[in-house]
């Protein structure tokens, strides 16, 4: 972890004034400010940790751990990002930590069945067809958004985590590899499988359009 650069105080000048005021109250140990921070950002952090962890109990634990580590690190918050962005990253880290330490869950499906099948001559066994409107018109519908989120939740954990870090959190391949203790090549292979699996889960619903 790099030390706080001397210009850190200058950097916080870039924050909107309400966030700067909030930060001052937090650094002064104002209990009401801590509670407000938790209320303002907790829900969003919970939606992130739920995606990673699946279990509600683990997701809530991760949010709690995220806030406690954020409180400890307040002095190191440099103001180059918004408080919400900073807390979001801490929530992702807390979720990953939880994944590493929790007891492995009952054996789940490997996800292989979600990968495309090919005939012996190399052709697609079930030829793909396009989605009506590219699925985009359908996305306007709340039920499609729900379908997409449920499909992500339904991915095998090893696929889901890589897909979330790369495509949703937009971390790059090397950072994802480091966070998960994998090689970059393994991240790429798994991401490709995860995307194919997500596509396979959505396909039956979007083939004919909704």
């Amino acid at each position, binding site marked *: 972890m790099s030390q706080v650069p001397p210009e850190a105080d200058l950097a916080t000048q870039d924050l909107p004034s309400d966030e700067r005021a909030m930060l001052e109250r937090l650094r002064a140990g104002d209990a009401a400010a801590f509670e407000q921070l*938790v209320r303002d950002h*907790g829900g969003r952090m919970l939606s992130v940790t739920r995606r990673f962890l699946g279990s509600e109990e683990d997701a809530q634990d991760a949010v709690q751990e995220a806030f*406690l580590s954020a409180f400890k690190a307040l002095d190191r918050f440099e103001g180059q990002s918004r408080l919400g962005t900073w807390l979001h990253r801490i929530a992702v880290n807390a979720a990953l930590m939880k994944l590493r330490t929790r007891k492995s869950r009952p054996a789940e499906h490997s996800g292989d069945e979600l990968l495309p099948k090919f005939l012996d001559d190399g052709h*697609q066994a079930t030829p793909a067809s396009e989605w009506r409107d590219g699925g985009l018109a359908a996305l306007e519908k709340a039920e499609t958004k729900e379908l997409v989120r449920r499909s992500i939740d339904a991915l095998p954990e090893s696929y889901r985590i890589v897909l979330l870090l790369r495509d949703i959190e937009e971390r790059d391949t090397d950072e994802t590899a480091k966070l998960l203790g994998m090689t970059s090549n393994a991240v790429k292979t798994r991401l490709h499988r995860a995307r*194919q699996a997500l596509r396979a889960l959505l396909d039956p619903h979007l083939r004919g359009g909704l």
Partner: protein
Amino acid sequence: MLSCRELVEFLMDYCDGELPPEQREYFEKHLACCPPCVAYMKTYQQAICLGKSACKDEEQKPPKMPEELVRAIMAARQAK
């Protein structure tokens, strides 16, 4: 001629612009005469877009923070 199986294998590299020119050419030759692979590629890319926007959308409308969790966090902070 690239098979559909090989095309799907190299799909991510192709979409990321990471295929060397020669392989890229094979790839595009296959696409030009194989509608199912075109459909596979489009839906693969659309699945990624749908995932991104469904999750972004959720962050715009975050769930409510459970009251007990707020209490638990405040208590844990005090306990330190």
